[in-house]
């Protein structure tokens, strides 16, 4: 039996250890905020944090995540109070919204490392997460917005 630590809680997992973390989260543990987009790690819709690092859950085996601490978009905050979520809501970033969980997870990871990112930092940190609706201009603005809010609250 594998034990997965997700959003601070421990979850026993009795399924196939080869199963991608994405499907374990979605179908075994009922955490559906992590999305299936490509299955080959090219679109970033399934981005989660493993020990604070952004990982593509669709190409990460459960067995490889078992030792780590996993955070999904549900773990950022359940009420939308995290400054990144707040910025996404206020700046009305989403169109269809399907990729936005992956965008938010990537943005949180960026802001952890670079609290005041430049546009070039955003380009490089966010380039792996596709948005088919083309909300990139707003994602960029929302990251700057969140950075300011996080700075102000320090």
């Amino acid at each position, binding site marked *: 039996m594998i034990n997965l630590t997700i959003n601070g809680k421990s979850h026993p997992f009795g*399924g*196939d250890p080869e*199963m*991608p973390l994405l*499907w374990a989260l979605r*179908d*075994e543990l009922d*955490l*559906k*905020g*992590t*999305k*299936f*987009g*490509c*299955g*080959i790690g*090219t*679109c970033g*819709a399934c981005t989660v944090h493993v020990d604070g690092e952004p990982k593509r859950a669709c190409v990460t085996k459960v067995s490889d995540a078992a030792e780590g601490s996993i955070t*999904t*978009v*549900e773990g*950022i*905050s*359940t*009420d*939308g109070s995290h400054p990144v*979520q707040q910025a*996404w*809501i*206020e700046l*009305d*970033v*989403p*169109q*269809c*919204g*399907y*990729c*936005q*969980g992956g965008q*938010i997870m990537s943005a949180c990871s960026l802001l952890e490392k670079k609290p005041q990112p430049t546009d070039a930092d*955003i*380009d490089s940190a*966010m*380039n*792996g*997460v*596709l*948005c*088919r*609706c*083309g*909300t*990139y*201009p*707003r*994602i*960029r603005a929302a990251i700057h917005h969140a950075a300011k809010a996080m700075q102000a609250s320090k």
Partner: protein
Amino acid sequence: MTKTDPNRRSFLRLTALAGGGLMLGLYSKAKAQAPNRPARAPLAPSDFVTIASNGKVTIAACNPDVGQGVLTSLPMIVAEELDVDWKDVQIVRSGVGRKFGSQLTGGSTATPSNWEPLRRVGASARALLVSAAAQTWNVPVEECSTASGRVHHKASQRSLGYGELASKAASLPLPDASSLTLKDPKDYKIIGKSTIGVENLDIVTGKPIFGIDLALPGMLHAVFHKTPVMGGKVASANLDEVKAMKGVKHVFVIEGRPMPSTYPNYLFQDPGLETGIAIVADSWWAAQSARRKLVVEWEPGQWGTQDSAANVAKAEELSKLPPARNLRSEGDVEAAFAQSGAKVVEGAYHFPFIAHATMEPQTCTAHFKDGKAEIWSATQFPQPGLRAIAGLMSIPEENVTINMVRGGGGFGRRAYNDVMCEAVWISKAVGAPVKLVWTREDDIQHDYYRCGGFQYLKGAIDPNGKLIAWRDHFVGYGEGEAFAHDGGFSPSEFPAGFVPNFAVHSSVMPLGLKTGALRAPYSNSAAWVIQSFLDELAHAAGKDPVQFRLELLERTPSPSPQARGRGMDPARMRRAIELVAEKSGWGKRQLPKGTALGAAFHYSHGGYIAEVAEVTVAANKKVKVNKVWVVGDVGSHIVNPSGAENQVQGSVVDGLSELIQEITLREGRVVQTNYHNHPMLRMAQAPPIDVQFLASPNTPSGLGEPALPPILPAVCNAIFAVTGERIRTLPMTKQGFSFA
């Protein structure tokens, strides 16, 4: 207060709610209909606005939302006229059925077709509540006013909340349509104010609101391995071996049902059912893992030798033959080409097939039980879907229930209900609720593709630099007079009517691939070809490309408004072009070497859009789009400016992606598989996009689509201005260009 047009054909019905509230239904008899679409049956009323006795206002959103924002913007229109505060309104999704009016999401139609009816719904409810208050207080209606969900009588300083009045209002006769007054736009508090999406909180917290998130008790998970060639059949497969895999419950062949005709309009006809092998398991991962062990021998059928390179060669061949059809002819193009002093320009353009590739792959959950089908789907076309299921399963339409769920992107793909048919079929076969989820590979390889095509253009400029002749030989796919679905060309497309000697011809060749509507269908290729070739002509004429376009639009069009430029009003387009030129500093800014501007415009879906792109091209042909300016005239009001700007910026990003995308066929199969070989724009490649709207005294039109088409030619025209190389084949990678 403005009186409304009494000739509108929408109707209301009022119902008292149990517990003392009111419910107002709307139905409309005949909204604007495109030709070739079946007439709609008379409609029964639906529950549109409900006001509970506790004052809670609920507005039903009847159109599917796949990211275009109608879940927010359409209820805003109702709330405005009802005169309630937006924060006090709850939005719910309506059901699916004839009684809800036209529920399709497509053609940027939601705003123009609902603008008037929805304001009237809100105003009717408000009028009822005012009458109820006036009767309660025994004062004239004219002395009452409304604000924030309350009726006020100023003279006596009394007021009542809508909830307190709802029960009485429900007992009153509906206000006469001709007496109904709509708000003066200067008093608008909701329309025209940026309003955030009603599901934003659910989206950013990862709530299970999308089709793929559905979970039902006892639900099984399915994958469907379809024939890689249209119309192919299974010759043999190792079904028993796959069935023995862990978690697998059922493995079986679904025999395909033939398509209704060779080149059907899949939007409104039964999509049929392709042959394939369904694998149903207790989890999606188990089903997909089992699929990897599946070995199928296919009988590819008549399309098994189809090849993209051969199609390109065939088009070249057809272009040299006399065209099969003359679609339009005015003046004498040949005489104009031969005119002494005329400068003749020729250009052969080729645009490829493209996949939709919505971020959420195609998915549908269905439960077929006791002759009834219940479906959870993000379809853009729920009503044709309902009819398709009734036909496929041979059950009456009233035995089909469709629950609308949020779609992870549509772009036209979810107008096609193939995945719905498959899910219902599989559910019936296994006798359990089933969620079918396609892989990305299924999605890219089994699309209703934007149809490719070829345009062989010839134009002539007289010695004064005036465009005097235009001939277009469109080589597409189809048979006889039938073009592949959404793969034709309109003979009234601009510059039809603006050039004295004008001809459009067509020829077709066969195609064994499903085609369909991709965001701004037809326009997304037509604008690229026409605005690129127009640029070629401007340069040949030695004129500034913006000036050349403005001069063309200043001509008096002929013969009739409908026959030229697809009904475009040139004055509205000129204003948009002039403003975008001003905004972008066209002709006024000194740009560094390797950087230039390109301009284009296009009229589609009622929208007048002009765009300028500033582009830098490096020596290695790496293209960087530095900035894009968009000016649009979509009528008198922008319902939700935040949503509108997002749609326009998204359209530009989407159009940029189309410069690098291509679907090709080899041995009848689609070659591309996933986002690595059918790419889309990424963050670092997305430019800042300046959006400006020009108001005009016209009914507001939609914004899901019209801002997309002009960006492709604007960028290609800028690349030409930098390099002198004209992009006549897409994707631009064919000519060595790629995004930096």
